[in-house]
């Protein structure tokens, strides 16, 4: 029972994270591209309950950061005025999933103060908002690319396993070829062939297509194995005897066996592909400025001074780790479930 609770917790966490990232516009207090040039590399805002006079406030409040006179990029709190954290405040306009337009944000503070939950980057852009919006790119890339891989894998695996003979032979040799390819270098090579003068949206879809089409080999091989074992079962022979067509047999008797494997594969591939997107963007081959993704957020850390001076720039890595662990937990659970089912 405890195990089940853990799985449920992992699933809940994943759902919550995905929902939060889908609602990035609502949860993020600012537009991710808005630069506050007076506040580069501001550390995360601190929340206070007790003010300078020692009075306790039920509603948390913040102080605005000001630049310390002697140092560049060094800040201190301006204790002169408290800015209470407000909920459901009006701010920059956004759309959710391209459908709902709104300008209400979950939280915020009155201007001119700004709330930097995860600090700001070198242009004074709110890092938390960038992580939320960047998550949309990274997660969507992971999910869509997984979809492409599984679809291709299912298609090739089914045809190959079901029809056998030379189709199977050639498809499996192709699979082997794709399995031995070093995917990172392949991604780099493929990406570098593509045009550079393209908009961030186009880059995004190219990225998804590239990642998705490279990873179909493993699911294809797994699906083929299942199709092979399923098509040899007696009820398939029986149904063939009753005159069932190939497509009927595939749909009714063979495909349902593959769902478990596909689900496990999906749970494994999504984090892998998120990391693939992050890798490409980290290397400067993903979506370009000012659009954020977890990869190009982390790319800031390539600069030694950022790595050494501004710890909050690691925040996107935390998001990445949590999401990946969640998916792996779920993948593990599905796998165990399948194992126990088959016994």
């Amino acid at each position, binding site marked *: 029972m405890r195990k089940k609770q853990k799985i449920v917790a992992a699933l809940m966490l994943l759902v919550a994270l995905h929902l939060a990232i889908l609602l990035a516009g609502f949860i993020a207090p600012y537009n991710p*591209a808005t*630069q506050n*040039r007076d506040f*580069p590399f501001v550390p995360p805002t601190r929340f206070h309950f007790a003010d300078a006079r020692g009075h306790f406030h039920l509603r948390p409040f913040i102080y605005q950061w000001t630049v310390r006179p002697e140092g*560049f*990029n060094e800040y201190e709190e301006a204790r002169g005025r408290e800015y209470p954290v407000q909920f459901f405040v009006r701010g920059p306009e956004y759309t959710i999933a391209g459908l709902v337009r709104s300008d209400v944000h979950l939280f915020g503070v009155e201007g001119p103060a700004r709330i930097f939950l995860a600090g700001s980057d*070198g*242009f004074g852009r709110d890092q938390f908002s960038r992580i939320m919006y960047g998550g949309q790119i990274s997660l969507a890339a992971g999910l869509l690319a997984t979809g492409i891989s599984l679809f291709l894998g299912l298609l090739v695996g089914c045809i190959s396993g079901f029809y056998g003979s030379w189709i199977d032979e050639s498809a499996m040799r192709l699979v082997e070829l794709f399995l031995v390819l070093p995917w990172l270098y392949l991604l780099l090579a493929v990406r570098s062939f593509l045009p*550079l*003068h393209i*908009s961030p949206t186009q880059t995004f879809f190219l990225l998804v297509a590239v990642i998705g089409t490279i990873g179909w080999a493993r699911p294809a091989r797994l699906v083929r194995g299942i199709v092979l074992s399923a098509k040899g079962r007696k009820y398939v022979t029986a149904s063939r005897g009753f005159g069932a067509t190939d497509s009927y047999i595939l749909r009714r008797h063979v495909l349902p066996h593959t769902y478990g494997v596909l689900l496990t594969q999906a749970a494994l591939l999504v984090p892998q592909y998120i990391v693939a997107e992050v890798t490409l963007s980290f290397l*400067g081959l993903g979506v*370009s*400025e*000012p659009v954020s993704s977890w990869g190009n957020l982390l790319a800031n850390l*390539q*600069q*030694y*001074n*950022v790595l*050494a*001076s501004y710890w909050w720039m690691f925040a996107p890595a935390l998001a990445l780790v949590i999401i990946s662990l969640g998916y792996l937990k779920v993948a593990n659970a599905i796998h165990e479930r399948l194992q126990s089912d088959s016994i």
Partner: protein
Amino acid sequence: MHRWGCFATLLLACGHACFASSAPQPPQHGEDLLVTDNQIGRYGGTLVLAQRSEPKTLNPVTAADAPSREVIGRLTADLIHINRWTQNTEPALAKAWSVSNDGRVFTVKLRHGLRFSDGQPFDADDVVFSFQVYLDENVHSPQRDLLVVGGKPIKVQKIDQYSVRFTLAQPYAAAERIFDSLAMMPRHLLERPYKAGQFAQALTLNTPPAEIAGMGPFRVKQYIPGQRIVLERNPFYWKADRSKNRLPYLDELVFLFVGNEDAQAIRFQAGETDIISRLSAENYALLSKDVATRGTDFFDLGPSLEYDFLVFNLNDLRSKNLDSIAAKQAWFQAVKFRQAVSSAIDRDSIVKLVYTGHGAALWGNVSPSNKLWTDQMLPHTPYSLDRARELLKSEGFSWRSDGQLIDRQGVAVEFSVITSTSNAQRMKMATLIQDDLGKLGMNVHVVPLEFRALLDRVFQTYDYEASIMALGGGDADPNPEMNVWLSNGGTHLWRLGEARPATDWEALIDQLMQKQMVQLKYKERKHLYDQAQEIIAANVPFVFLATPNILVGARKNLGNFKPAILDPNTLWNVEQLYFIPGNGARPGEKP
């Protein structure tokens, strides 16, 4: 007995090593040494510094990349040298020179009794040979252009063993400055490969050290590909301090190849290198925080002579099959469009965010630190979106309801800016400019490219719309910059390969520049150059952005360290550098 044998072997080994390891030779009779007025140092020590990349060649005539030139500069010497500190010319291998009244004939007297780093004598034949090579079109020297004055190459004649005459086709302003950094090469080693047409292959990194000789303070000792190049003292160097100690003081000079600027900073922080030049502002801020603990000093020398700029592609694309770019050139060609872009860029935030305040905003090509040549009257267009909008409106641009800028035909203004991925500062500038121009309703894409790919697009294929680049920094004098400003120049970036000036203002710049090049009087020359600067600023072929300060660091115990604005900022007086004993020794081990 056995022990004595060992000792003898040791002595022999030492004797051999001392001979090979270039102990400074005592001054010879009749040797015309140049006496420097630096603080008297102590012999010994190895100075280590890191380069971003490996030098490509040791050939002074064909080298074009900065790492090669940095190493070659320590191996070679010139006749007349620009003192990096005073920015004036001073005698080097030439003891003295005289100029004819018409400013066309230079007679140069060489120092007597000097020797190359392999011990062979240096005289007028070597000078004549060196210039023959530099001027040979088949050798393709990047410096050749400077030696062609008034369309004709400089004529070089030997008068006697120690004097040479240079004849120019027309008077040339600051003519003695062109001798700077022209390496005098050993005829006895290089004449044969040159005659065989193999000069370009004669001095590579793989050439055995014994076959390389120069007049510089150091000579090659060892090269390990991918790791480092080790230089040792030239025992015959032609400079000495006031106590007749032959320079250089240092035994060895080591250049490590570390890959990038961050790696340079890390190596310096770890104490593995002694000097760091051209620190980025961020790393300067980071490293100078722990000055106290590490025994290092950091220097902000003020704005460099370099200028960062945004350039629009105005090249003639008719033969290039680049229709989509050609269509956008209608915007770029409008002066008001470029002026609007210039007004909309917030230079102060570039200085603040990119250079963390260690830089200066620019509106022209001459840095404020170039006191002799900067035009004090040059207008500084203030950052003003309103002015930018007005300029665009008067040029027929308008705005859609969503704020997008459109031209007369209703086409949305959208273009890409290419920058080099290897330069984090320019990438940052691109993001700031993207945001600034976004406020004008321009849709700007930033495209980071590998540096070579970027150069290829800008110089060869013209397949780009706009680019952020940097130029300058060589010399304070305007003349080396002429290949940028003359319409037929090889670095006339915005419109390359022009047979004649495409616009009136470019023709005017050509005229002014040609005039100042032959004007010998500083005041008149300055007046002409000021006019040219004003025309450049008004027509905005480059949108000038900013210039970084020169930031350097060095061990506290490095004597005679005097960093300068001019390149090479820290090594220009390397022969005078020495380690002050017992004072803040380096914490790390030497590699």
